[in-house]
């Protein structure tokens, strides 16, 4: 067996790496007949931060459920690192950061319990944490800056701290693919900056992140790519060319509040017309070319700990 695996390594060139997430022609219909997603297609390579935007009911959570394997597509396929979802989840390849409103904050678990849950896939059948599991959990807590809160019950935390705990769980899991469901909802600006800085660091380590958000204004700041959906994928690609007024208009239609600001109202504005698009949260401001501002790195506090720093 072993020897046959080792034969002719030189003859076969390694196959090109599979996309981290490959969604192909996915249609999801619920048992009541509602088609939540039709023929959705996009793919993401490793080391990418991708925004997922669309109105409520556009299929964002259905898409997440399909990637997590909670719903089975009626047509099409989802592959993770080239594998079917079931096989990928058995290896704990995908971490999931839930929406705050989906979490039972009164559940009797501490911050430390939650972060250790990230290690369960790697533990033995009795789920007794090894030293290495505890070290990874402690490092994850350090990285998100809530190490001092480890013995608190999770309901005793502020909105921003709660988000950080679940990010720490994803870090502890050491998954290369992370799904984040509305990570900026209900957090202060400082936490938002800290989350974005953390996502940047993880991207640099080769992680792929799919981030659903209503915070349109932040998307050009932290997303390399964007997937715009409205019951199907309306547009997918690099933020600079995809996150445009025209594409957003296709997905959001009348749901977006769109304010036009004439330049005479804005002293010193050079463009003739500004478009302000908002989907409940941070607004997106577009110039008259209808393109997003170029990706910038605003003055962010330096990372508190170098990524992957050991104890």
């Amino acid at each position, binding site marked *: 067996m072993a020897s046959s695996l080792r034969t002719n390594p030189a003859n076969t060139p390694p196959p090109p790496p599979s996309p981290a997430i490959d969604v192909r022609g996915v249609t999801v219909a619920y*048992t*009541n007949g509602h088609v939540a997603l039709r023929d959705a297609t996009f793919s993401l390579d490793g080391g990418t931060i991708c925004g997922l935007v669309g109105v409520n009911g556009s299929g964002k959570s259905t898409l997440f459920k399909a990637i*997590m*394997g*909670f719903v089975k597509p009626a047509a099409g396929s989802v592959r993770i690192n080239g594998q079917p979802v079931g096989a990928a*989840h*058995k*290896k*704990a390849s*995908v*971490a*999931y950061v*839930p929406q705050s409103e*989906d*979490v*039972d904050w009164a*559940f*009797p*678990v*501490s911050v430390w*319990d939650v972060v250790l*849950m*990230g290690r*369960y*896939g790697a533990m033995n*059948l*009795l*789920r007794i944490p090894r030293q290495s599991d505890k070290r990874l959990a402690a490092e994850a807590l350090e990285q998100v800056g809530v190490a001092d809160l480890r013995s608190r*019950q999770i309901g005793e935390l502020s909105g921003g701290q709660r988000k950080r705990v679940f990010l720490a*769980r994803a870090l502890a*899991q050491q*998954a290369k693919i992370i799904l984040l469901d509305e990570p900026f909802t209900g957090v202060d600006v400082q936490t938002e900056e800290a989350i974005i800085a953390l996502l940047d660091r993880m991207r640099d380590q080769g992680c792929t992140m799919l981030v659903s958000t209503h915070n349109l204004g932040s998307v050009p700041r932290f997303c390399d790519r964007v997937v715009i959906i409205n019951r199907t994928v309306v547009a997918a690609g690099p933020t600079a060319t995809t996150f445009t007024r025209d594409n957003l208009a296709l997905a959001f239609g009348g749901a977006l509040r769109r304010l036009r600001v004439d330049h005479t109202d804005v002293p010193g504005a050079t463009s003739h017309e500004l478009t302000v698009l908002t989907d409940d949260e941070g607004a997106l401001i577009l110039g008259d070319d209808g393109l997003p501002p170029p990706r910038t790195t605003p003055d962010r506090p330096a990372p508190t700990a170098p990524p992957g720093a050991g104890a």
Partner: protein
Amino acid sequence: MIDALLQPLQSEFMLKAIGVSALIGLTCAALSCFVTLKGWSLMGDALSHAVVPGVAIAYAAKLPFALGAFASGMLAAGVMGFVKDRTRLREDAVIGIVFTTFFALGVLLISLYPSNINLKTIVFGNILGIADADIVQVLIISAVTLAVLAFKWKDLVIFLFDPSHARAVGLPTRFLHALLLTLLAATAVASLQAVGACLVVAMLVTPGATAYLLTDRFGAMMLIAMTVGTLTAAVGAYASYFLNGSTGGCIVVLQTGVFAVTLAVAPKHGLITAHRSRVVAGRAAPALSGGAA
């Protein structure tokens, strides 16, 4: 005086009753933590009623009662899941319809084909009259349930807390869901003898609810619930000897009593603490508004 207090412990049937009650109390209490956190109280009530037709058929067919009861409970759970997934009805409506139907069927079967069990035993329990064969069945069910929980409780906690994460770290969520449902049905079957179909749900909810008021850690919650469940079941069975009253009634009233006291005085989540903090907040508020005015 002491002789009088020890008297129940000298009769074999009382010792058996107390011992079996304690074991059932322990098993139900362990499971009650999961039932409370999953929001499955109604499901526990439903399953404990849905086992009745199975008991009737098992006795008529001279099969172990647990077998029939368990099959009947799982069938009811299956029907509930089937109807819920395929209609727009809310879950509580589906559960309400299915379990009353099963219970009605059981009542009908027992009245049509009277055997050596009577309706009163199933509905209200009769631990004092428990047959040795039935004790063996209770022992097996409890041992298996407790063993499964000892091995799988951490997986079940993750499944309850965050099913998406459970899936993400490779846990079989569908299996865990089915496992919890199976344990619930099995425990409902075991408790039938002690407190009867009507009161099983109390043993499957109250100890967990009591413990949840006292702690913010799942492990501690399990320990508190199991202690409360075991003690109240044993003491309730013992007290029923002196009261010459229903054992199931004694156990459940005792459990509710412990719950009520806990609800009042629990250090963090009790009513008195909540009232105090409201009073403190109330004292602070007028000072603030007074300052603003």
